[in-house]
Structures are given as C-alpha cells and as structure tokens.
C-alpha cells in the first residue's frame, strides 16, 4: 500500500520537476497523471493496492477543493464590482462549453464506434 502512495507522490514530483525544467504550460500533477498512466500501460493491469489508494483519493475529491473555494472571501469586493459581467460570463460560457463539447463528442465518438 505504502509503495503505491510513494509511486503517486513520485509521479507528481517528477511531473513538477519536468514542468519547471522544461517550461511546459501544464501543471505538474497532470504530467504526473501521464507518468502513472505510462506505468499502468507498461504493467498491463492496476495492482489491487494501487486501486485502493486511488479510490481513497478520488472518492473524496470534492473535499479537496474546499480550502481553495473558501478563498472566495478574499475577493468579495471584486466580485461585487463586476457581478453582472462575471456572473453571466461564467454561467453562459460553462453551459455553452458543456453543450458544444458533449454534442461534438457524442457525434464524433459514435462515428469512431463508441456506445
């Protein structure tokens, strides 16, 4: 179990290192994700203990956004100043993005043979 915790942290660490060293415009953990994916593709299966560690982290992923979310208290004045353009921008754009991406993928994915 501990060895897979170590593996996940190591993937993130190497990811952060590569991002810093190469100046790639992607966060370190995303590169870490790619590294862990490569590990799994080479291994050919998800080890049971890794699956357990992953389930622990992903099962409560929403919780992990709460501390950053509370940072909203620092920006109440800015949000209030431009409430209408910001609020409408976020809502309209989020709905439009979900619609465009979802419809395109459903259409193109069906052509590629997805269910």
């Amino acid at each position, binding site marked *: 179990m501990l060895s897979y915790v170590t593996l*996940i*942290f190591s993937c*993130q660490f190497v990811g952060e290192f590569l991002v810093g060293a190469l100046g790639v*415009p*992607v*966060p370190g*953990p995303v590169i870490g*994700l*790619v*590294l*862990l*994916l490569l*590990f799994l*593709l080479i291994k050919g299966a*998800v080890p049971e203990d*890794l699956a357990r*560690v992953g389930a622990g*982290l*992903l099962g409560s*992923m*929403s*919780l*992990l*956004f*709460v*501390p*950053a*979310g*509370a*940072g*909203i*208290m*620092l920006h109440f004045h*800015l949000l209030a100043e*431009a409430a*209408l353009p*910001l609020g*409408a*921008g*976020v809502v*309209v*754009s*989020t*709905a*439009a*993005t*979900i*619609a*465009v*991406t*979802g419809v*395109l*993928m*459903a259409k*193109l*994915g*069906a052509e*590629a*043979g*997805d269910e």
Partner: protein
Amino acid sequence: MNSLQNLSQTWVYLSASPLFHLTLTLVAFQAAVWLFQKAGRTALLNPVMVAVVIIVMALRVTETSYATYFQGAQFVHFLLGPATVALAIPLYRQWHVVKRSGGAIAVSVICGSLTAAATAVGTAWLLGGPRDILASLAPKSVTAPVAMAIAEELGGLPSLTAVLVILTGIVGAMFGTMVLDACRVRPWPARGLAIGTASHGIGTARALQVNETAGAFSGLAMGLNALATAVLLPLLWGLVF
C-alpha cells in the same frame, strides 16, 4: 473556576492551531454531504459550495483571516496534486475507448476550449466588463494553476481568476447534468469529456460520483483543455485585443 480557566485557555490555544481549521474543513464538508444526501442528492446543493458557505460564515463570525484558516486547510488542499495523478487509474481502465476515439476527443476538447473562452469574454464584454476583468475571465474553465498563469499573460488578475475557476467548477457540477440532458448527450465518455472541459477538477469530482467512465473522461478532458487553452488562448487574444 480553575477548570473553567483551563478550558478557556485550551480553547484559545486549540482554536489558533492548524488542527482546528483542518477539522473545521472536514466537519463543514461532512455537513454539506449530509445535506446533499438528505435533499435527494440534487446537484443544486453541491457539497463544495455548501461547505465553502459554512466555512466562510464561520471565519467571518470568528474574525479569522483566510491565511490563518489556510494554515490548517492546506493539508487537505495539498492532496489535490496526488488525486490528480490518481486520475490515471480510471483513465487506464477506459484506455480502449480513448485509443479508438483519439481524434474525436481532440476535436471536441479544442472546440470546447475555444467556446469556453469566446463565450465568457463575449458575454462579459457585452455587459460592459473592462479589459482586465475579461482577461481574468477568459481562462476560467482551465484547472486553477494553469488558468492563473494564462490570466497573468493576458493582463488579468490571477487571484480573481482563481475564484472564477472555482465558481465555474461549481456551476458546471450543479448544472452540467441538466445541460447534457437538454442536448440529449447520452454516452458516458461524451458526458465526462464535456464536464471536464468546462469545469476541470470540480466537475471531474462530480462526474466520478455519477459514473466511473464519465469521471475518467472528465479527468482526461481537464488535462487536455489545460494544454489546449494554454497554447491557443494567448495567440487568439493577441489577434483580438
């Protein structure tokens, strides 16, 4: 009397310790999840949103600064990185689908990325948003660290962008299902890809609760959209402004 004094001294000591704000974060989230379940798991009572409201109220009442709160909450915040890495696991389980529809995924995410920036900036511009507000809003569908870097490059306010990223995530998690149903998007890969492109990790956390395939594609879309937006948005911004 003596024991009362001890009690209050202990409280003063503990309420300033990181343990207190770490516990506050967990308790607020548990309460939010409880409420979410009591209300029939309606996406409108998004647990992240409810927990944030509880915590901000608690900090306001006790006149605690965000910096003090974060000293405790950072231990939870820190796990975001390892959790992002762990998204490789559901993604690996869907690898056969990813391989087969790589082109469809790339086209969908790039179009989604452009839609996100164009409609956000367009709407805010029509409503009179000034330039720095537009630049802060443009990368809001991208995961926070990348979005903040892009906003800085465009001349926006990175810390405002961080808040807009969180709001976008919550809005996507709350209304994503509704939009997808209205557009009759049924396959789980397409639903996940849409949520992840529009609302990054918060959307992905929600997608994982609904369906593992959707969660895997949402995580994939989050990473791809970070890349697409970081490359495309500064180029397009230079053409328009």
